[in-house]
């Protein structure tokens, strides 16, 4: 505030104007310099940062999902390969008018209510950019119809890629597993942009899951120039993908397919092992699911149909199904007696039952077997023989032999999970139940009942080890550097006794006379088993309610005198071993004479109403038709 007041004249005003105009001009010039400095700072000092941001604006990196490695059988035949597939995806983050777009897609792609339900479910669960498959494997015409309407369908991403294909479908479902789009959790865990690339699939089950790192390959990349609205202007560079490596299995694809077909309408499993190498030749579990439909995103109804089936098509019975082995353990028990010093000629009298303590244990043959030695005990499956000598030899001997032969063992197989069951022993019972071992437990265990639980793969391994006397380890993949097979150290004549007795089961006076191979010069040895599911009070085990029927089991190897192949067949609630050994016979026949085996199978399939695919399709259709009605009570 000016204290002195000079007289205000026009001259003073002129001077003031000049002075202040220079101040204003100076201020303007300073601001100009400041702006120049600011610009220099942005474009020189911060140039690197902004050049990078500009580049990341301009260039969009699109990953190309790698083609998955094949899974081939021992002869190089593809069990899982890739085929060209056209697909439509939704990127949830870019989907703005969901109802409108889905409505359009529904008509364009002829989606049924089931598919719409799945898409909506996936969209609700989807995170940001995780693509949701609308439809895979669409026809060229459908693809084109979506492509031309693309500008009106924001969030829709059509793509040309590869889809996993399993030529034999359901026959390899459990063995190979299936692939699927990664879910939100898997993406969170991996933090890999590949996981949210449409069309990328990861192994979700079994071998597909276990060998994921081998099968995956390296993604390709397409660098494109995009506008702010996401429109691709031009391709900058493309790096091709590197296909995943091939996994060579020991499986014989044709045998696997045959075994799966031969199980027919039953619920069961077949495991075949090469006795000389341990190669697993077949591992079939039926009923199964079609991995092809899982890989392209399974429908709600189809999944429900599978999960409600009392034959549990979603469980791999060869490794996760646990069953009382029944009489199939008898050759093992006999081997334990032999190795513990019991002569094969030792006999006991079977009168149809044996009193143990204050309870009578019956032989399956109520009329009795008369004088029974070891061979007869096996081929006639005399329970009393084993009741008698088991008490004499003790449970520890039997349990130790069971474990040596693979029961209760977890094998180093490339599978995500296997249930390895129980080989009971006095120590085991004390620890598990806190109760001492009873003689009755021993008696039960010798006929494969009671606490004993095994899976079909263990049974097949047991058969192979009994047949060869070697520690046969099952293998699913081919490997040049396998350790040579170790011997179990059994006396040769002991092995001979067991082989001969098991030969008699099929080719002599045994319990499986109908299992004889229709092949010249090849004799199959085996052992039947019938596992009780419920006490006899609920049913005879032969008929009645399906789920109360006995399991039918059979272990086998052939040729009996120079074992090459070992097999185990388990038919759930088959009503007895009679359900199992014909399957073992035909599967074994296939290994020696394919034409004969195929002829037999075709006869059966006509009776059952077609191939696996035909029957599954019919079942599904019937289920869908029935799904609208109130659910049926229980399993009839």
């Amino acid at each position, binding site marked *: *505030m000016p204290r002195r007041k000079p007289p205000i004249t026009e001259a003073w005003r002129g001077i003031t104007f000049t002075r202040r105009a220079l101040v204003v*001009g100076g201020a303007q010039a300073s601001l100009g310099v400041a*702006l120049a400095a600011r*610009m220099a700072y*942005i*474009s020189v000092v911060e140039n690197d940062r902004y050049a990078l941001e*500009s580049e990341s604006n*301009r260039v969009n990196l699109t990953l190309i999902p790698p083609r998955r490695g094949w899974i081939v059988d021992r002869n190089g035949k593809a069990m899982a390969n890739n085929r060209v597939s056209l697909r439509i995806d939704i990127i949830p983050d870019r989907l703005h008018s969901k109802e409108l777009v889905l409505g359009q897609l529904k008509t364009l792609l002829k989606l049924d209510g089931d598919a719409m339900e799945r898409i909506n479910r996936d969209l609700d669960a989807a995170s940001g950019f995780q693509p949701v498959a609308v439809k895979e494997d669409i026809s060229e015409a459908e693809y084109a119809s979506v492509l031309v309407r693309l500008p009106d369908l924001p969030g829709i991403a059509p793509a040309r890629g590869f889809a996993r294909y399993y030529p034999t479908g359901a026959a390899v479902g459990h063995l190979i597993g299936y692939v699927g789009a990664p879910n939100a959790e898997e993406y969170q865990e991996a933090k890999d942009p590949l996981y949210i690339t449409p069309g990328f699939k990861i192994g979700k089950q079994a071998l597909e899951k276990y060998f994921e790192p081998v099968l995956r390959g390296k993604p390709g990349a397409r660098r494109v120039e995009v506008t702010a609205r996401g429109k691709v202007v031009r391709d900058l560079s493309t790096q091709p993908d590197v296909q995943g490596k091939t996994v060579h299995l020991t499986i014989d694809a044709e045998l696997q397919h045959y075994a799966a077909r031969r199980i027919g309408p039953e619920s069961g499993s077949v495991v075949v092992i090469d006795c000389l190498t341990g190669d697993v030749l077949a591992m079939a579990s039926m009923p199964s699911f079609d991995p092809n439909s899982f890989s392209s995103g399974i429908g709600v109804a189809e999944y429900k149909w599978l999960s409600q089936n009392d034959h549990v098509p979603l469980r791999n019975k060869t490794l996760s199904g646990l069953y009382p082995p029944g009489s199939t353990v008898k050759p093992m028990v006999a081997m334990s007696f032999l190795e513990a010093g019991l002569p094969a000629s030792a006999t006991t009298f079977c009168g149809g039952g044996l009193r143990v303590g204050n309870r009578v244990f019956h032989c399956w043959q109520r009329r009795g077997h008369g004088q029974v030695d070891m061979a007869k005990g096996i081929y006639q499956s005399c329970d009393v023989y084993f009741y008698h000598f088991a008490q004499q030899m003790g449970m520890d001997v039997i349990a130790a032999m069971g474990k040596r032969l693979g029961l209760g063992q977890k094998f180093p197989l490339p599978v995500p999970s296997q249930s390895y069951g129980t080989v009971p022993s006095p120590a085991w019972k004390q620890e598990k139940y806190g109760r001492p071992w009873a003689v009755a437990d021993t008696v039960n265990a010798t006929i494969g009942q009671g606490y004993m639980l095994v899976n079909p793969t263990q049974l097949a391994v047991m058969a192979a080890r009994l047949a060869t006397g070697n520690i046969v380890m099952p293998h699913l993949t081919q490997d040049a550097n396998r350790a040579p097979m170790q011997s179990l150290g059994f006396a040769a004549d002991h092995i001979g006794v067991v082989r001969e007795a098991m030969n008699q089961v099929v080719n002599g006076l045994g319990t499986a006379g109908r299992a004889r191979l229709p092949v010249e010069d090849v004799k199959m040895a085996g052992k039947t088993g019938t596992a009780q599911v419920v006490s006899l009070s609920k049913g005879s085990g032969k008929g009645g309610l399906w789920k109360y029927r006995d399991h039918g089991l059979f272990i086998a190897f052939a040729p009996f005198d120079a074992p090459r192949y070992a097999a185990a067949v388990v038919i759930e609630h088959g009503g007895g071993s009679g359900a199992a050994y014909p399957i073992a016979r035909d599967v074994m026949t296939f290994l020696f004479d394919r034409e004969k085996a195929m002829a037999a199978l075709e006869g059966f399939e006509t009776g059952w109403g077609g191939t696996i695919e035909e029957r599954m399709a019919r079942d599904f259709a019937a289920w869908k038709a029935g799904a609208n009605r109130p659910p049926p009570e229980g399993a009839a």
Partner: protein
Amino acid sequence: MIPVPPAIQRIPWKLIALLSAITGFGLLVLYSAAGGSMTPWASLQGVRFVAFLIGALILARFPIKPFEDFAYLAYIGVVVLLIGVELLGFVGGGSQRWLDLGVVNLQPSELMKIAIVLALARFYAQLPPGNTRTWTALWPALVMIGVPAALVMLQPDLGTALAICAGGAVVMFLSGLPLWWFGSAALAGAAALPILFSMLHDYQQKRVLIFLDPESDPLGAGYHISQSKIAIGSGGIGGKGFLNGSQSHLDYLPEGHTDFIFATMAEEWGLIGGLALLFAFFLLLRWSTRVALNARTRFGQLAAAGLTMTIFFYVAINLMMVMGLAPVVGIPLPLFSYGGSSMLTVMTCVGMILAIENDSKTGARRFH
């Protein structure tokens, strides 16, 4: 030597060259922004420039007396137009800034930038020197600035309202009003800032907040500033080269041909292009400031200085905006940005300043 005829000599060739250089450079950038095409922007902009340049040169031949005489009338006329726009906007709904006159969309708020300067220049030219420190020197000016600024704020157009205030304030400052008035006004303004802020529209408030922290919302309202800085920063010293700017060509830079044209230019021409443009504006403003200093009449002095400020305000706010130093207020870069309104305003300013320059060459100065 061939004698140059006086008619030719009187044409301000240097200024025409300077204006043509700025606009020509702008045309190159518009050509590039359109993806290497004269349409839709560059050719129309070029035609406009030629037309407005001729208009400015004609304006320059007028004596300045009529400008002074009609300053108030023009001012009142523009205020009426502003009210008209406001009423039309009320009827039409939403933000309304122009009157559709059929042939041209007239934006009265642009005219006001000039009218306010002329009206205030006349007011202070007529004010007896003895009244300079009195109340009578202040309140009419405040009303004259306040009414149109308020009307423009209602549109709402924060940038233009500020331009009107800036032009008016500079004229008041140069007229010799006591310095402490300005000091206390600045203090009062700073104190009232929160209240003024609360009176802004939501989107204006958001722009101001985003300006204070642009990275807080890089994909939303801060997008403009972020992308603009990316464009300028990625240009570096020499730029990416003509027609090679990815930010503008791929639409990452919004308003790349209007408000953010400087970023479009800087991306392709780099710091060198930016400094050249700044230098060109410096030359233009130095010329107009010199005209103000050498003006023969007080009206001429104040008007030339005020119009200089109007031009400067465009340049400064626009450049501050594109470099992230000011909120996004929607002020174009004069002569450079595509658009008729701002070019019309600036060329009118230039024409008047030329008229004032011509006037100072004709007679003796009244002051000094």
